[in-house]
């Protein structure tokens, strides 16, 4: 598969076109806004944590296929995860799209990891890695209760 086809796999195009969990969440416990000033991509993550578990998570925003797909897949995967697992996933995802390594203590089932692997193609496109990580950095800020806008550039 060419690097281009690996980047734009069907599942990414599908999530990019019809993102899941798209919309505002009423009374979130955490909410953060992320922005990539270079390309203008924006994302807002709404998070509801109940008893240390992600009870609900949604997002709003606009941007390229990679950033929208990454946000969509992230929300799908994180529902029901503990906060500790989310932190681990963040590290693992970051490694996946920057170095391609997934070496991390996994506290989640392997099927979830597989879903994220489709985004690994982005590491061949250094200018586009930030598109994939924008939602995750914004999520981290929402978890930490930061109101400050997150920027990646």
């Amino acid at each position, binding site marked *: 598969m*060419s*690097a*281009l*086809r690996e*980047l*734009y796999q069907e599942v990414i*195009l599908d999530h990019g*076109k019809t993102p899941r969990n798209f919309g505002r969440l009423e009374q979130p416990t955490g909410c953060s806004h992320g922005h990539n000033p*270079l*390309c*203008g*991509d924006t994302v807002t993550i709404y998070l509801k944590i109940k008893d240390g578990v992600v009870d609900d998570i949604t997002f709003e925003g*606009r*941007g*390229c*296929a*990679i950033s929208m797909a990454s946000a969509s897949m992230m929300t799908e995967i994180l529902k029901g995860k503990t906060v500790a697992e989310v932190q681990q996933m963040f590290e693992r995802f970051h490694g996946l799209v920057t170095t391609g390594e997934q070496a991390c203590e996994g506290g989640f089932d392997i099927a979830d990891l597989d879903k994220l692997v489709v985004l690994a193609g982005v590491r061949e*496109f250094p*200018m*586009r890695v930030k*598109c994939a990580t924008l939602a995750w950095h914004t999520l981290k800020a929402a978890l930490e209760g930061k109101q400050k806008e997150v920027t990646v550039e």
Partner: protein
Amino acid sequence: MNSASSPMRRNAPVFDVEAVRREFPILGTSVHGKPLVFLDSGASAQKPRAVIEAISRVYETGYANIHRGVYQLSQVATEAYEGARAKVQRFIGAASPGEIVFTKGTTEAINLVASSYGARFLKAGDEVVLSVLEHHANIVPWQLLRERLGIVIRVVPVDAGGAFRMDEYERLLNARTKFVAVTQTSNALGTMPPVAEIIRMAHGVGAAVLIDGAQGIVHEAVDVKALDCDFYVFSGHKLYGPGGIGVLYGKERLLEAMPPYQGGGDMILSVSFEKTEFAPPPARFEAGTPPIADAIGLGAAIDFLNGLDRLAIAAHEAALLDAASARLGAIPGLKIYGTARPKAAIVSFTLDGVHPHDIGTILDHEGIAVRVGHHCAQPVMERFGIPGTVRASFGLYNTIDEVEALARGLEKVREIFG
């Protein structure tokens, strides 16, 4: 018949694009295994061999600091640097070399004018007129001045085709209008406001005018005396010259009256801790050691352009614009922003359902370099309600085949995105 000696040459512009391309070494390179199709000259143009060699030659045989040494090498460098200033002067039709200030680029030139002209001539309540088409470099310096002085910024809108609204401009001009700063050519859309008329009307209410020529000077010959603008600014790197060098043209009597922008060496007559006397322009505005080789490189770029027929270049670029507008305009779901004429060879567009960044990545894999995003002109994007566009900006070395390559690249985007 030998075309070089043919009288036909003078009547019908002849432009041998293949010969010109051979002067640009980078155009022979490949990207992702495909021949480079460089369509981002609006951001920064590629350099002809003459410019590259001129810079090498300075460092190899003619480099020393200028205006200082009594030794021969310093004199050689000083003469080459001042020679470049004279070339710029003739290139834009300024009255004297003293009206040419070397800066880092267009951005620094505008900051210099806002800061220095502003300090001397503007006060709270004075109105500065800009347009929606402006690059951030012709917006933010005026906002900084607003913070400092309390000036008022007025903005001329554009119509649906991206044309500067002359009726609105006329409505905005009044006795409080003290300065007008507009672009000669929109970097994001390519549309060209009627600057001669804009300058005439501004002078009618007693306002001074700065023309941002960063894009404009690349596509047509400029005569600042005929335009009668008070300031004209442009960058070397978009004019096939080196980066890090730009030009501020200012009318002599204005530059004379303006305070220094930065303090340092080379901009003084005498310094003591009690009192420092400033040098006259242009030295007053060139504190510190300038990018000497780059200024000389800009002179080489001007020589290069003077060696070509600029009307023939304009005709060639107009043909590229027409071909690109027609070919891209026929692609389903593709919308071109900035259709008003006159317009430079810049085509800004969106493709339904595909984000500009994704288009940029896919085109890159076809060897095609385009700019994607807001092009440092967010107010333009806001005007059209879009986050960004794909922008193909053509230079004198681009070909009709490259327009076709772009169109085929966009068909590939459609293939992938469905």
